[in-house]
């Protein structure tokens, strides 16, 4: 769990936000807050697929499917089982 979290957190801050020092909290809203731009959602989905082998469909790329890292980590774990 923690590993998935830290991998995702690092990817989002360094690659997507390009702010390596930015800490992302478990419960921080990513999509509904506008932190992750709609142009970056496809990047995040491709990264999740390449890294964890879990596909998130494009119609799932919204705050209803996951908004926080917590929820994204859970989604990944549920789909890997």
């Amino acid at each position: 769990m923690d590993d998935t979290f830290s991998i995702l957190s690092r990817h989002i801050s360094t690659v997507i936000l390009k702010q390596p020092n930015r800490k992302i909290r478990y419960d921080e809203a990513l999509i509904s807050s506008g932190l992750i731009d709609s142009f970056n959602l496809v990047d995040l989905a491709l990264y999740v697929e390449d890294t964890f082998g879990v596909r998130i469909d494009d119609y799932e790329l919204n705050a209803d499917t996951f908004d926080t890292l917590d929820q994204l980590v859970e989604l990944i774990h549920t789909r890997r089982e």
Partner: protein
Amino acid sequence: MSTFARVLVERLRREPDAAALVLQFARQPERIVTVRGLLRAAAGWQRRLAENGIQPGEVVLLILQHGSDLVEAYFGCVLNGSIPAIMPFLTEKLLPERYRAELTALVDVTRPAAVVTYADFEPEVRAALGEETSVRRVMVADGAPDLPAEPDWESLPGLRRQPDDIALLQHSSGTTGLQKGVALSHRAVLRQLEVYAAALRLDPARDVIVSWLPLYHDMGLIASFLMPLLLGVKLVLMSPFDWVRAPYRLLQSISAHRGTLTWLPNFAYNFCAQKIRDRDLQAVDLSSLRGVINCSEPCRAESHAAFAARFAAWGLNPAALMTCYAMAENVFAVTQAGLDGPVRLDVIDRDALQIERVARPASGNGRAALTMVSNGRPLPNVAVRIVDAEGNELPERSVGEIALRSDCMLTEYYRRPDATEQAFLLGGWYRTGDLGYLAEGELYVSGRKKDLIIVGGKNIYPQDIEAAASQVPGVHPGRVVAFGLFDEAAGTEEVVLVAEVDAAGEGEREALAEAVRQAVTRSTAVALRQVRLVGPGWIIKTSSGKTARLANKERYLNEIVKGDA
């Protein structure tokens, strides 16, 4: 000369069962809409508008997501002789309060008689309207009402409009208070379509236009919506919301419907080339494409090359890559390139461009060169000239403001006589605010006169961003500067913001930078690429106290970027 409603009814008589439109939205089955189906639904909307007392010549503001409601209500306005204007829907990024302020400003200038929106958005709209509003009805889109019988088309008020009546408004994205609605007559739009279609050799029997573009922008509304629907070319329409999450859908649609033409802003070439996986291209065949037309952002040779290389194996013909220079004030296209041979590239001396403002062909001798992409020749009904600050015409290869004159210009900025007057030079020449040069009859666009930033095809005013950042406690109000920096990988500009603060500690500064990002995103829907916090006195102001954006950008590049290296 005809009108929209007349053209549509003639199309209905000619080919009622032709597929006018294919609607493709994520998680919904594809929907094919015939000419008859589209006009019957539009006639249902017309009846509702009339029953609600909405008159011909009155503005109807449409606040709807991309989908059949928007399309049907739009043509309902046309059949009612009313003037449709599309307002972008609220996105997750934008603060509802901010959106409300924009809506209030738009309504104040445009004075619509009605707003069409969804039931659950109605309270938001009402809150924005205030008490003494021009809006008499807020109408809810809950599917088009069925008509009991074939409407009596000739009796519809839209059929009695005159060619010089205003057909529609297009709102250029702008700062609140500077909201300008471009008012276009039936005559102007139909003239543009006639000339542009001839330039493209548009053929209803052969061509299929595929688009994901937003309908509140001229490239989406004119080239990829009104042109096909009015001229009888099949249109496959997707939502920008879906496309940005799944860019491969555009290519799948082109393949499935044998699409021949699609318009894209420059960044979309990079976005498609970088973010589409092979597995989403199985059985995709792009060989039907004869025009992928780059428009609305500066066109980059690298973006074309990346797109061509990425999709060559899927049948993309590199000769399909074209460019166009367009603006809402001319309805749409001003120039078009690439139909008779490849788009020209002009390799010029960088320093001559930047210092002497002359586009001199590069000599080679170790001097830095720039590759400019041609936007092509003016359409036959458009004259283009390059002018200096006083409006005098400049010679070939001199860089100046692009001015144009045509017989398909805007009627006015709606209810903004001040803005209309400012935009024109003597003799009816319209000043575009873009900088460029002419060489051998072709137009090259080199930049903007104003400080406008274009991100992903969307116009962004730095003063909006600066105002939002100035609101953050800890930032010196007015001591903030925003500007665009070109990002090679993304093929578009990104926004950088520099703000003067007192905060010294690293943690304090990080928190402040984060607060600035959030404030800017929520009030302008712009994601900042970089926020740089600097000490007091850093920002350069002009003698009149205005922020000198170009000087600050140069200072930023010199000090900060070199300091990072």
